[in-house]
């Protein structure tokens, strides 16, 4: 794939934004592998949900999303303005009802979290370099 395509958007820190961001990513359908696109939708959903749930104070805050596709890869960047968060050290225990999000995202992508004075920046790349296609 030689084409390169990118877009960015600012979304309100509200639950409905997660579906809107996934819809936008589906415009890559003709550029990327279908499995990679499905994984990107899920990873973006998890990262954006995390930013809205933990990284924002209210809907007056916005979350910035950048997506780029090219050279067989999709890269996403999600920036929030909230307090610092770290990825969980281990998957949730069997009895837990939450905490799966970033684990799922990390299982499908190469994901890094960085912090600045302005907030958190999560960068992910699908497919992750050393991981086989997951999820069957």
């Amino acid at each position: 794939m030689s084409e390169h395509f990118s877009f960015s958007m600012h979304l309100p820190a509200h639950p409905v934004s997660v579906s809107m961001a996934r819809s936008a990513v589906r415009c890559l359908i003709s550029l990327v592998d279908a499995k990679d696109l499905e994984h990107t939708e899920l990873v973006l959903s998890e990262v954006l949900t995390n930013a809205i749930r933990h990284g924002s104070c209210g809907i007056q805050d916005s979350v910035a999303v950048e997506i780029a596709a090219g050279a067989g890869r999709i890269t996403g960047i999600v920036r929030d303005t909230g307090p610092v968060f770290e990825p969980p050290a281990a998957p949730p225990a069997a009895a837990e009802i939450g905490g799966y999000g970033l684990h799922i995202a990390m299982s499908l992508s190469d994901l890094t979290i960085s912090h600045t004075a302005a907030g958190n920046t999560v960068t992910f790349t699908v497919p992750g370099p050393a991981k086989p296609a997951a999820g069957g």
Partner: protein
Amino acid sequence: MTMSNLFGFEVQNCTNAVRIRVFGEADMAAEQPLVTATSEVLASGGCASVVLDLTGVSFMDSSGLRGVLRCRQNARAHAVPFKLAVADGPVARLLKLAGIAGQLEYE
């Protein structure tokens, strides 16, 4: 039939065996409505069992999963058997990715 992305659900009650059919995208926006719907069914009493039918779900992430697990927790608190109906597709893949597929009961 084209599967809509719009989240929704439908409660079917057949001699107190309740089936909640869920449609569309089960994400952060759907979590609380799903939990509320199940809570109302359980609180109404006379509910012998609950099946959460996820075969119409077009997308699920960990927030959708959290909604399902909260529904299960609520059913357990009411001592009502709780099962899922899951087809091959996004829900089955998500349950497998989360490592929780083997811990749930299926219809």
